[in-house]
């Protein structure tokens, strides 16, 4: 039967080990766009005008000084926590406890600020950073120990510790740490001016931004230019090969979870010291969870995390803006979840590549032989 000719389509879809650079950019960008489109369909379903709302969000975020500055403010904890959880993810350690580590960091920093109110800034701020590192680090290390020695699932333990940390902060601000002069509101006393991070001019953008940018550079260098970073990446990509190469996996689990917790703790510190100037319940609207999406969307690259954090900061601000139109701000949480779905679906495209075939028929013949 000569009627059945092989299809002369000049492109082939085949597996590729290294994702093409163009696709690595296109997939995250398209997933954000598609998530917004899916969100629009949903908004239309609930009887709202999606294009009007998106327009309000866009012009509110990018069209005003307030929106732009506030985007940076929101991006600060997101980028730091995103760097923290992203580091653990790089080793395939699922640290879902960023939120709790952030709370414990903020809590420890607050302890320093409230205990030494009369100390100068040169003592207080480094002291608060150190305390936050210890608080977040311990909270990251706690689930790492059973994980390293017994193989206890770290996803569940890190997540359970989030609830414990949030309840612990609730206990403190409703109890022993409640400001006696605070009219019974669940707030600690305001930090002394010496315990407050400097801001950019009269804006709300604080020095936490520098912390985030510096951390991103350090993490990039550590991950891609040092032996330790190489070990982390090998364990993440192929634990079997890592064991064969003599890499101490248990030790790396402890170190990476410690570092991840420390970084998330710093996110909590800059949030209370740079923005809230006191500890209060619910000071984080789930930054530790949004950080998971940011890290994954950035493909765990520390420098990309910065960019994505600004995008999600903008999304967060957009959520507050549309609230005035009677739309719950949680719409943004839903959109963020959608983004992650589309990124995951898009990653299939990264696993494959289109290759142009010069002579399709010869290719088919070759294959059939």
């Amino acid at each position, binding site marked *: 039967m000569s009627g059945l000719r092989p299809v002369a389509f000049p492109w082939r879809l085949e597996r590729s080990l290294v994702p093409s650079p163009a696709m690595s950019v296109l997939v995250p960008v398209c997933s954000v766009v598609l998530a917004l489109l899916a969100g629009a369909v949903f908004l239309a379903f609930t009887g709202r005008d999606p294009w009007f709302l998106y327009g309000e969000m866009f012009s509110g975020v990018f069209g005003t000084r307030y929106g732009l500055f506030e985007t940076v403010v929101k991006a600060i904890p997101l980028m730091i926590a995103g760097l923290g959880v992203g580091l653990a993810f790089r080793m395939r350690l699922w640290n879902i406890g960023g939120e709790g580590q952030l709370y414990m960091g903020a809590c420890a920093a607050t302890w320093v600020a409230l205990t030494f109110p009369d100390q100068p800034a040169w003592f207080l701020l480094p002291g608060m950073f150190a305390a936050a590192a210890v608080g977040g680090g311990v909270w990251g290390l706690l689930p790492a120990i059973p994980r390293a020695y017994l193989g*206890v699932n770290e996803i569940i333990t890190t*997540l359970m510790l989030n609830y414990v940390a949030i309840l612990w902060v609730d206990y403190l601000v409703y109890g022993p740490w409640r400001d006696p002069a605070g009219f019974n509101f669940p707030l600690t006393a305001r930090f002394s001016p010496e315990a407050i991070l400097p801001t950019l001019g009269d804006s709300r953008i604080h020095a936490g931004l520098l912390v985030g940018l510096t951390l991103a550079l350090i993490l990039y260098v550590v991950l891609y230019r040092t032996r330790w970073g190489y070990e982390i990446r090998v364990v993440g990509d192929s634990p079997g090969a890592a064991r064969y190469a003599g890499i101490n996996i248990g030790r790396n689990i402890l170190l990476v979870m410690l570092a991840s917790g420390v970084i998330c703790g710093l996110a909590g510190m800059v949030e209370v010291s740079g923005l809230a100037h006191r500890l209060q319940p619910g000071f984080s609207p789930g930054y530790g969870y949004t950080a998971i999406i940011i890290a994954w969307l950035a493909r765990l690259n520390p420098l990309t995390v910065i960019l994505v954090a600004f995008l999600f900061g903008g999304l967060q601000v957009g959520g507050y803006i549309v609230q005035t139109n009677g739309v719950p701000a949680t719409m943004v949480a839903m959109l963020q*979840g959608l983004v992650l779905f589309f990124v995951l679906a898009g990653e299939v495209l990264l696993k494959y590549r289109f290759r142009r075939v010069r002579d399709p028929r010869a290719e088919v013949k070759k294959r059939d032989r």
Partner: protein
Amino acid sequence: MTGDFVIAVLATAIVAGTPLLYAALGEIMAERSGILNLGVEGMMLVGAISGFIVAVATNDPWLGVVTAMVAGGAMACIHAFLTVTLKANQVVSGLALTLFGAGLSAFLGKSYIGTPLAKPLREVHLPVLSDLPVLGPIFFQHDALVLLSFLLAPALWFWVYRTRAGLNLRAVGENPAAADSLGVNVFLSRYGYVILGGMLAGIGGAYLSLAYVPAWMENMVAGRGWIAVALVIFATWNPLNAVVGAYIFGGIDALGFRLQTLDVAVSPYFLKMLPYLFTIGVLILVTRKNMLNRIGAPGALGQPYDREER
């Protein structure tokens, strides 16, 4: 007095354990097929709010339960598509489901905060059983979803260990390539069991909003979905063990709740930490025990099945 207190705590333990039991049973079935679904928390939240909305609108809690089942199944469908068809990372996809579910339920539920439910699920009176001394008030003076869960767990146990379909399910989870070569449709059965898991998680969520509380509160599942995931490990993927686990965890929940009413000198915030700390402690003990007894997760749990890569 103390006897009544113990009976009251045990009865509350059964009620508090029921949402955990439904969710854990669902997750056992999904994980038995080799798919880890960490979206239980999200599916429960969506089940809770969708069931609540329909129950308020129709004044029929059972329509609410059915809606929650469908909604949970639909959520699970997303996970199945991403992990079975597109072979995406199961951990991240499950997390996405939980985050999406939390956002979606808060969005849909915004206007239902504080709305009363005129007709929650009501207690069913069983002849003889409900009137038993001690056992009656503990086990048989509950609503129909609790009573149904008494039947569901053994039924699923029978399905997994004593039927041909259950044998195929275990094969798909242990060694999908072998199951495939024996003619079992790996993709279809994984879709099926993941969706079944979502439906049961949806019921578990609806139980909270239609019977346990009964009202809608933002994030009302409060980590129970994650505790259910831990329960699966505790139960060593056996539906009958899940019953024991769910009621122990329910008991911890109930105890904390009951102690608060007794004016104990412990801060309520510490009592609320109990279930979470208990989960961590139990997980560590059970992982160690399973390691010593060489009981493990289904062999192919978490790994996508790809015919090309056989």
